[in-house]
């Protein structure tokens, strides 16, 4: 059943329009950065001298997530080989700032990996600076969307915190699942993970309520004749599709969207919280427990991908007012 579900989802993912490379990038890098941010919180209040295997897998996972995410983000570009040019316009462009912050993060990050692995105490300072830069990177990603007035569902105060808290919750969940795998205990991680997962769910629900309100842009302001008249769409410029309609005007049925929202809530919030809280009462084999935490993490990641997909597909762009929408 699950396999069939994943196959169908996979097929949809390959064809769909809100760019899958962007969805993959924001979720993957967000998770990687989330691991680093969570680690720095833990380092602030406790010792984080884990055994080598645990350290190595944390290093590998966070590095791979961040790097694969960033690499996939260049896939949607028309000219990926020119991506380096995007570091130049940080004065005005959030996308440029994001790229710059992402690259800068690597400097303290690599040093932290090295020093942490060599058990040199100064690793903490590099962890803290990598963590601050990670926050800045996710903040820039969020702001890039939040600053677009053309998409009312993004142009609000919730979007950037959601990006941050999503990264943090899935990042700390990754660390938590690894502690189960290596059967080690990390002080305060339990509370931290639960808190961030709960916050993630809460913020997203507030956001969904918020985006129900319509923006001031409507067919009346778009055509500009709505003051004393009733304006309605008669026909588009052509019968076929164009760049704008495929890139920006995507529709999803309400029932389907609600189902996917439920999927996100269960996969990324309820299931992990249940597993963490109820772990002691689960009388299962140690191996099965490890496996189930691995599955929990994979499901949580799938849930995050679904959430990001909804974030894009449910965002109505004001240009749709020229293509038959009355409100956005």
């Amino acid at each position: 059943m699950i396999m069939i579900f994943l196959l169908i989802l996979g097929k949809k993912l390959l064809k769909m329009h809100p760019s899958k490379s962007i969805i993959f990038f924001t979720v993957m890098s967000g998770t990687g950065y989330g691991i680093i941010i969570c680690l720095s919180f833990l380092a602030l209040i406790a010792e984080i001298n884990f055994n080598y295997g645990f350290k190595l897998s944390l290093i590998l996972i966070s590095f791979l997530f961040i790097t694969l995410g960033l690499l996939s983000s260049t896939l949607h570009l028309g000219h990926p080989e020119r991506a380096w040019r995007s570091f130049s316009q940080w004065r005005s462009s959030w996308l440029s700032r994001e790229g710059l912050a992402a690259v800068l993060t690597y400097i303290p990050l690599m040093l932290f990996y090295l020093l942490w692995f060599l058990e040199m105490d100064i690793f903490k300072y590099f962890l803290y600076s990598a963590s601050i830069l990670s926050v800045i990177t996710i903040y820039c990603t969020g702001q890039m969307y939040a600053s677009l007035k053309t998409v009312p569902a993004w142009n609000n105060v919730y979007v950037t915190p959601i990006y941050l808290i999503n990264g943090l919750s899935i990042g700390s969940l990754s660390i938590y699942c690894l502690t189960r795998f290596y059967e080690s205990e990390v002080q305060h991680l339990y509370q931290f993970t639960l808190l961030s997962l709960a916050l993630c769910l809460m913020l997203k629900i507030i956001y969904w309520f918020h985006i129900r309100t319509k923006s001031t842009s409507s067919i009346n302001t778009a055509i500009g004749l709505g003051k004393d008249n009733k304006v309605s769409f008669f026909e588009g410029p052509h019968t076929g599709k164009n760049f704008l309609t495929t890139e920006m005007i995507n529709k999803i049925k309400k029932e389907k969207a609600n189902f996917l929202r439920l999927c996100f809530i269960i996969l990324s919030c309820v299931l992990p919280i249940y597993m963490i809280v109820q772990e002691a009462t689960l009388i299962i084999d140690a191996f099965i427990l490890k496996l189930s935490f691995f599955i929990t993490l994979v499901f949580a990641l799938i849930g995050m991908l679904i959430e990001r997909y909804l974030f894009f597909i449910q965002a109505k762009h004001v240009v749709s007012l020229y293509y038959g929408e009355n409100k956005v």
Partner: protein
Amino acid sequence: MTSLPAKQNKKLGLVIDLDICVGCHACAVNCKEWNTSGHSSPLHDIDPYGDDPTGVWFNRIHTFEVESEINGSKTVHFPKSCLHCSDAPCVTVCPTGASYKREEDGIVLVNPETCIGCKLCSWSCPYGAREYDEEAGIMKKCTLCVDKIYNENIPESDRVPACVSTCPAGARSFGDLGDENSDIFKLVEERNGYDLMPEQDCLPTNKYLPPREKNNQFKNDALNSITNDNDFSFDTWKEIIEDASK
């Protein structure tokens, strides 16, 4: 180039008269014709003769129905291309500086050499003026025919954007909207020209002129004076017509 120019010497732009436009699409066709061999050439088409054709167009004509108590229902053809905004968000979001606004005349252009095709500018534009050329992998847009309006190889009278020179109805005007003494500025003043989506704060340069109030309406009184002589009042006529249309 990342930011908008501090001051603008000129604000070249278009004024589109919705009262005159007949929706013939000639401006869109001539736009494609000129630009596919001009500054942004070629404007690629994908599957042009197939079942599902798409392609790069800088100008598109939408059609709306506008109804009011006084004027009744009216079909309004609505050509839309880049509005060369004074506060153009497509310029400031560009991560590479490929998108820029010229200080000398306010035209917003894309440098095809440095554009990485991230499409963020298209997301930031409320008017859908940005076009992604899939074949070229870069963004393209209306250049206000920058390669035509300054072109000294063509007669001076032809040095206007292709959409303006081709319009058979004269619904499009071109000029400096920053100059209060220009004809085009006066036209906008006289006809109450307006901005599209002013709430988006882009300060578009291009203006739209609303359809004029109808002045050839059937006036009840006028009809009554004719029909009274023949024992047929206006209301009787109206009833007959209404019965017939049932």
